């Protein structure tokens, strides 16, 4: 019983890649096939916006898969196919956003936040410690003196 549960749990952990495509795209070169599969997962369907074109069953996704296939068959490189789609559907069509003035903040904001937070913490701590200690010692000394008297 335990074994079954463990196997089932492990099965759940397996990466699931779904391909709704039933079209047959034949490649002679396995590397090109891999490129095709990678591209259809990276390219985003403009119609059903949260699916890639490998997953989507919209007509436009069919057409885009067909286009990716024919472009690869023509000998176009991965980047050329991405550029082709971007020229028609904009940066939106690729799941990896390019670094532009607007998207720069996606990377810069967390770093900036961390840097500012560290600076604030460091600044607040340093002067506080020795000053306080000296003052407290002096105070304690005074209290002791008072008690003795």
């Amino acid at each position, binding site marked *: 019983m335990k074994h079954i549960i463990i196997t089932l749990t492990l099965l759940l952990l397996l990466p699931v890649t779904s391909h709704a495509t039933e079209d047959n795209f034949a490649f002679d070169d396995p590397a090109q096939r891999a490129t095709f599969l990678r591209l259809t997962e990276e390219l985003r369907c403009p119609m059903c916006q949260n699916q890639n074109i490998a997953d989507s069953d919209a007509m*436009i996704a069919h*057409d885009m898969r067909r286009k990716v296939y024919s472009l690869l068959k023509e000998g176009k490189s991965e980047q050329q196919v991405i550029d082709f789609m971007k020229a028609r*559907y904009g940066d939106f069509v690729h799941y990896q956003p390019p670094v532009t003035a607007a998207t720069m903040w996606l990377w810069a904001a967390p770093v900036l936040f961390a840097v500012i937070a560290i600076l604030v913490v460091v600044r607040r701590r340093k002067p506080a410690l020795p000053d306080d200690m000296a003052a407290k010692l002096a105070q304690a000394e005074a209290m002791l003196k008072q008690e003795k008297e």
Partner: protein
Amino acid sequence: MKKLPLVAIPLVLFTLLVLFLFQGLFSDPRELDSQVKGKPLPEFSLPDLMKPDVIYTPEVFKGDVTILNVWGVWCVTCAVEMPYLTQLKNEQGVKFVGLYFDQDLDPDFGTKTLSRVQQEVTQMLARFGNPYDFNIFDVYRDTSLDLGVTGAPEHFVIDHNGIVRMHHIGDINERVWQNKVGPLYYQLMEAKNAEMTSALPQQAGQQ
């Protein structure tokens, strides 16, 4: 005096966040930046839907302000907007050209014959009105892809020089026409007429 800026920081951050989220309420996630806007139409050479011997190129759009309407008989919204488009054509003389494509994935091996498609189109136009001067048949849907079409109906406002000036995704109804497409259309018509009238005396002078 020194305490004030520190208190203000969370307040400013909160205000910025509220503003950012507030404008998000009104943004349309389906709105894409059109890549063809401001550019001439991509090259194509496609047959007329009804008379396949007639071949069109982007040249047909020169000289007139045109609204290119992407549609198909399988598209319900297209049928809904068709009477209004016909009304625009009859009452205001708006020039519509159809970019027709069919849903069969591969036209070469599809189940539909061309005459079947033509028959369906004729039936539909007879029922809902025919706003089109002519229909361009995008056989392999390549031109739709070049134009960045995501579905149907979609509209491209093309000026008299053959430049795409607007890509409108969705149907044209009274509200869309009055607020979005119409103003641009009239502006382009004015620009075209101004150019025509300024060109006329020159031609007369040359002769």
